[in-house]
């Protein structure tokens, strides 16, 4: 018994030797960075939430998220593969519930309130959809190059995408599509079919745009010419550009950004948080944040590269696609090279749902890492 126990303990200990401490370090740095920026964004004395109460909330969410991170890391991720179908049903259920009983946030039904706390199920459904797709693509291992793989994966994603689009949450819908394309590409889907799907997406985009609400469409096109309607739909873009540019090389100093502190960035602690980073910490601060993101993605990629099986690798590529897409679109949006869509900046944007979901996803990644470690007896 004791030998067995010792063996198990030893095996476990060895497995944990594979634990990616760098991944955890970058996550903690990013979360800390986000907390500091969130504090600054809410710093202004005049009315409303004090910066600190938001920081406390973020601390609580981070604690929950980190707990989930370690729980996910310690569970063998292969379990999830067997639960792929129920997980998919849960995703659909949550999104449907949001459409039916969701409550209004900036004009869109994006969250439902449980015991006074808002849950944006679309955030967790992104991570869960990565798992679902990873399982599907892993099961299609032998036929990965066929069109049916792409069609199947597309259908899997289509339903939840449609549901979030109806909320209407254009941002999350785009993230679903990005995850789908990224995972298909990385899992080895036929490049010809994939190009066709990519082309089809681009072709469908204008139709999707016409189906949008007026305000969404206006906001979408502001990046092409922010001066078109600087007081109306493009107000945020104009003010964001002014804020980012005002930061200069070194920034105006934490809590000293005039655009931020004077309230010219209406949602500065949420989707436009990067404007605060850029204004207050300057180009240098922005580059530090980009570097942290780059390091994180490097860790995600390296886990995928080292994964023992396609399911693990797919989880890594899915999460990597999610992160890369959200970072690019969010920062692209506040710097005026991408349309304005409601996509949070991972770990930085204030919000419990995103934080908890992403930390859980990173826990899964850690699990892939830990459970892919090859014992070298």
């Amino acid at each position, binding site marked *: 018994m004791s030998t067995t126990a010792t063996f198990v303990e030893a095996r476990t200990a060895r497995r944990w030797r594979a634990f990616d401490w760098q991944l955890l370090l970058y996550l903690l740095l990013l979360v800390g960075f986000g907390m500091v920026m969130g504090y600054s964004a809410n710093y202004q004395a*005049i009315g409303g939430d004090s910066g600190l109460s938001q920081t406390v909330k973020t601390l609580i969410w981070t604690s929950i998220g980190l707990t989930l991170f370690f729980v996910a890391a310690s569970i063998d991720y292969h379990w999830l593969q067997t639960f792929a179908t129920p997980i998919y049903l849960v995703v659909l259920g949550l999104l449907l519930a949001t459409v039916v009983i969701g409550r209004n946030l900036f004009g869109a039904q994006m969250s439902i309130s449980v015991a006074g706390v808002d849950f944006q199920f679309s955030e967790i459904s992104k991570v869960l959809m990565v798992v679902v797709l990873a399982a599907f693509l892993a099961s299609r291992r032998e036929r990965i190059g066929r069109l049916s793989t792409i069609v199947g994966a597309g259908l899997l994603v289509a339903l939840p995408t449609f549901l979030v689009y109806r909320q209407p949450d254009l941002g999350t819908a785009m993230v679903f599509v990005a995850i789908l394309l*990224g995972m298909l*590409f*990385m*899992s*080895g889907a036929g490049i010809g079919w994939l190009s066709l799907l990519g082309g089809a997406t681009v072709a469908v985009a204008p139709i999707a745009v016409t189906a949008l609400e007026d305000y969404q469409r206006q906001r979408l096109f502001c990046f092409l010419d922010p001066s078109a309607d600087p007081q109306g739909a493009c107000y945020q873009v*104009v*003010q964001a*550009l*002014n*804020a*980012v*540019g*005002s*930061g*200069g*090389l070194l920034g105006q100093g934490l809590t000293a950004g*005039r*655009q931020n502190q*004077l*309230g*010219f960035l*209406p949602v500065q602690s949420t989707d436009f948080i990067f404007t605060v980073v*850029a204004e207050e910490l*300057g*180009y240098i601060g*922005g*580059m530090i944040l*980009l570097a942290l*993101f*780059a390091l994180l*993605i490097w860790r995600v*990629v390296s886990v*995928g*590269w080292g*994964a*023992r*099986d*396609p399911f*693990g*690798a797919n989880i890594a*590529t899915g999460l*990597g696609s999610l992160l*890369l897409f959200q*970072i*690019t679109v969010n*920062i*692209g949006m506040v*710097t*005026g*090279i991408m349309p304005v869509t409601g996509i949070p900046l991972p770990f930085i944007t204030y919000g419990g749902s995103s934080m908890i979901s992403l930390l859980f996803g990173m826990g899964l990644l850690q699990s892939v890492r830990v459970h892919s470690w*090859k014992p070298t007896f």
Partner: protein
Amino acid sequence: MSDLEGTTTARPSRARFVAATVIAVLLFGILAGRLFQLQVVDGALYAAQAAAARTIEMPIPAPRGLIFDRQGRPIAVNIPAWTLYGRPADLPATKSARNAVLAQAARLSGVALGSLLDRLAAFRGSPFELVPLATGIGREAALLIAEEEEQLPGISVGAEARREYLDETGARSGELLAHLVGYTGPISQAEFEDRSAVGYLRDDVTGRDGVEASFEKELRGTYGSELIERDAGGQPVKVLERLIDPVPGANLMLTIDARTQRIATETLKWGLEAAGVAQGVTIVMNPQTGEILAMVSLPTYDNDKFAAGISAADYAAYLDDPTRPLRNHAIADIYPPGSTFKLVTGLAALDEGVTTIAQRWPTYGCYQIPDASAGQCLFDWNHQGFGPLSIVDAYAKSSDTFFYQMAVALGVDRLGGWAQELGFGEKSGVRLPTEAAGTVVSKAWAHAQGRQDVFTGELAQAGIGQNAIAVTPLQLLNAYAAVANGGHLMRPMIVRGEADGEGNLTRKYAPELIRRLNASPGDLRTMRIGAREVITSGHATNIGALRVPGALSGKTGTAEFGTPTSQGVLPFHSWFVAYVPSQAGTTDAELAIVTFTYSAVVRGNVSLEVVKYFLQEYFNLDQDLRREFQVNAN
């Protein structure tokens, strides 16, 4: 272990990994490059744009210049006043919530809700501007509202300077000098549109009436400006820099002596009350310079009411008053001058050679109009006639028939020309608003009546200041002043110069000569002697006993106007104009006065009694020679 076998095949292809890495690096590169462009390359540009969007140049009002009397007594000062403001953008969006806030503001400020709503509805600017809803609210109310500002979104109070008007004792009283000083009030929408280019603000004030209006430019000063940083809601957060310092308006010193104004007011009031009439004018002037020492037009109004924001009821009462208290009758209205005009006819007759000083002319009880049918004659006030008279005697006794003959002999052009020479028929140019020009007899006047020429009877009547002659009291006084000073028609002055904050003269405005009269010194002297004779032997001997320091000279006038009563009697105005040279005929008079009483239909000359009373008080004489009037029952 199948899962161990899979380790080599689990990996995605190397090529796709490389491709993905390239894409990721590219995306991060684009973001980094874009940030470099925005922040490092164009950073200054965006910073400037951002600064421009959140900063605004705000005007700094210049303190309005103070007004002093000629002795340095403050008569218009600035005091803090509280204004209730509303910012439409910050008021609640729903009508009921908005009205609740306004009702609460109305309750606290003690202003009618309706008036707040009217002001708000009348506002035509940006919803982010402050709309003055009520001015002159009490200090207590202002503090109360300031305390409750949290509960009153969009409502605020602000302190600014407003005018307070003082009398000669320094007491707050707006009646003594209302017509001269005027008042300030909010500018209208049309005025704002006209003057926004020269720095007027939507909620600005401007001078109305009096010196406040005519010296608006000097009193206003130049507004400065400062750069203010605003938050996204448009609320000012802090002052970034002072761009232009405001230049305070000039402090003005009036030519008016408030003490003299008081005497002139009280003595005129006495006369009007004693005669049972409402309207009258007294003007006191220094003939040497044209400086107006007092100018009273009764009834007056309270300019301090306007400064504090006059109520609609008070304003309507002023407008509906038939005696028109808001008008300065001394300059804005024209009246027949009656016999006082004989100065003009006499001077013209002498200078044009119609008569010599020694030549005696017959006078009549009724003067037959030369080209009219027999029996059409013009009465002398003395229906017996005086017998033959020289010009000095005729002037002293105020013989009408003598001056009918002078006027007819002069003709329309020469009589009218001399009236103009003495300043009639044109504005004197005193720097006060609403001055009237008056009427002198002329062919043009006849044309305006639809006739070729003036009837001879009209010409004769013009010679005694009736019919085709209408003057402002100021014009009449100024003409007498010009004769009194030896022939200098001076521009009447209301402002003596500029002063420091304590009321010491710092810059004197020079008196201005309109023209030297084209009359010989001898003829002028003859008229001055005549004016002295009026007091010593003539028509106004009862004032001659006053021991004024000098040789009081002057002329009475009674001017009929309007339509006859049922008894066939015309109502009449009474005039008395006088000046005080050191000796008879000299040109050194420093005091001239005219009093005019409107429709003073009583026995005796009310104006003469008023001037008498004024001189008693002005020179502090130990005499009271005032006579009772018999107030006529008709």
